[in-house]
């Protein structure tokens, strides 16, 4: 009773500070007192890192010491961040702290910058001199973005943003859109796959186009795609570009950006120069910098190869890589990162108990994509482990998408978001 009351007061305080905290912290499940002994250090507190820390304790028990390190005390969700651009969602709704994870599951949360990970002495060192020894570590560093030619200066970087990691750039892009004149051109670009959130750029194009129609009449959105065609929800987005937002979205597949002039707002592409009022290029991705620095990048010079039974690095034993930084057949996105994290947590608990990982893990990807200000589509697929290829393979009906964008899907999108973030951060 007292605990519940105390938690309620803390939640009320967090709410007042404007930080979203799911209500069910009141009924968080208990951490068992049985289980293996050991120390696990998790670096990176995004969707993958926060989830693995939670389930290592929930499934591993109190004798498993879990430390979660991130450079920031607050996580900003990429999921729903496209809706901040049109003021449909406030930034505060994307923000989460690690307070509930620390309180509910006894995770040691550390805010600090990692200087180095030493796989020989098995220690994670921070720039402030602190060091954290581990038996196993989990690296969830997210992604790093390439820099375009022409965007080297600080001024250029401030003027042309990708906003593909939610945060200050999301607000910058929102302000640029609001300030854009009617009849203007909003140019965005999609990098070659694999990139974070396959339907995300198409979704952003739809959300921005819908806003332009309402607030900036006669404006256009040029969407350059480095890929040969739409990479996710092909039927939904084809309909959105050719029917729902026809005349506003100008979709150009197979076009790549060579250089950007931030002063004249000109983009030099493989299909000629284009001038725009707002430029929003999403650059090619690679695994977060810590992955390369630690030596786990072994796929195409960009990604960390893993054994999908445990997400242990194929380059470095004892280090597990989950989320967008890892190279698997699964998409790079928050929903599936949350499940990869549970497969990884389950495997680590088994390994520390002297058992083998589950030989047949299953994961799933699911998301809702807004198409207009009040309709959304969805995309979903279940992956089963295939022992012959040692990869995760789409099962059942394969990748499926909504037949039509509906208001009901738009409402369900917020339920999905609320539960996903609740499971990850509380």
């Amino acid at each position, binding site marked *: 009773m007292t605990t519940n009351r105390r938690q309620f007061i803390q939640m009320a305080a967090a709410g007042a500070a404007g930080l979203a905290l*799911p*209500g*069910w912290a*009141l*009924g*968080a*499940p208990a951490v068992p007192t*049985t*289980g*293996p002994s050991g120390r696990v250090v998790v670096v990176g507190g995004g969707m993958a890192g926060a989830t693995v820390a939670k*389930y290592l304790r*929930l*499934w591993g028990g109190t004798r498993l010491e879990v430390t979660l390190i991130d450079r920031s005390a607050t996580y900003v969700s990429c999921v729903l961040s496209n809706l901040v651009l049109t003021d449909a969602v406030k930034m505060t709704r994307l923000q989460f702290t690690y307070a509930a994870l620390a309180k509910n599951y006894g995770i040691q949360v550390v805010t600090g910058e990692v200087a180095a990970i030493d796989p020989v002495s098995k220690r994670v060192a921070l720039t402030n001199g602190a060091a954290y020894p581990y038996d196993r570590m989990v690296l969830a560093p997210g992604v790093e973005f390439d820099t375009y030619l022409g965007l080297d200066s600080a001024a250029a970087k401030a003027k042309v943003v990708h906003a593909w990691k939610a945060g200050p750039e999301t607000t910058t892009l929102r302000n640029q859109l609001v300030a854009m004149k009617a009849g203007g051109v909003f140019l965005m670009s999609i990098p070659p796959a694999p990139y974070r959130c396959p339907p995300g750029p198409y979704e952003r194009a739809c959300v921005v186009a819908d806003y332009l129609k309402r607030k900036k009449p006669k404006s256009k959105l040029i969407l350059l795609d480095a890929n040969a065609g739409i990479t996710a929800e092909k039927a939904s987005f084809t309909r959105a570009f050719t029917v729902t937002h026809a005349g506003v979205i100008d979709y150009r597949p197979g076009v790549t950006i060579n250089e950007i002039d931030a002063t004249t707002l000109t983009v030099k592409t493989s299909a000629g120069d284009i001038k725009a009022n707002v430029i929003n290029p999403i650059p090619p991705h690679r695994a977060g910098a810590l992955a390369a620095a630690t030596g786990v990048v072994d796929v195409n010079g960009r990604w960390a190869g893993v054994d999908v039974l445990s997400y242990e690095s194929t380059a470095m034993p004892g280090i597990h890589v989950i989320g967008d930084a890892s190279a698997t057949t699964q998409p790079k996105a928050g*929903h599936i990162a*949350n*499940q990869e994290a*549970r*497969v990884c947590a*389950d495997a680590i*608990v*088994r390994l520390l*108990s*002297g*058992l083998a990982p*589950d030989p047949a*893990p*299953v*994961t*799933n990807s*699911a998301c809702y994509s807004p198409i207009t200000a009040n309709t959304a589509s*969805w995309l*979903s*697929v*279940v992956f*089963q482990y295939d022992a012959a290829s040692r990869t995760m393979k789409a*099962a*059942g*009906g394969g990748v*499926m998408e*909504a037949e039509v964008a509906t208001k009901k899907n738009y409402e*369900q999108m*917020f*339920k*999905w*978001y*609320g*539960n*996903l973030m*609740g*499971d990850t951060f*509380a």
Partner: protein
Amino acid sequence: MSRTARCGALCALLLLPFAAGAQSAPPPGRLLASNCFQCHGTNGNPTAGFERLAGMSAREVVGELKEMKAKPGEGGIMRVHALGYTDEQLQLIGAFFAQQKPAK
């Protein structure tokens, strides 16, 4: 099968997580069922809508999923998940949620 034999099998199933001690394998179906947590909450207790799976009978969970599996056009996004699992996996998922306490 006699009543005694049935009870024996059931008791063995119920005692399994306790009998093997600290280093035992995790409860069967837990990792599989955790695929539902993103939308239906940790252990099947959602906080922001969607169906509460914690405490539902295995028959109910499996029954709903099998119906979606059988009929094209049923279930929307849930049909993807019904199709993605084998019947045996659906049983394990159902059995896991039947053992979870619904949060108040």
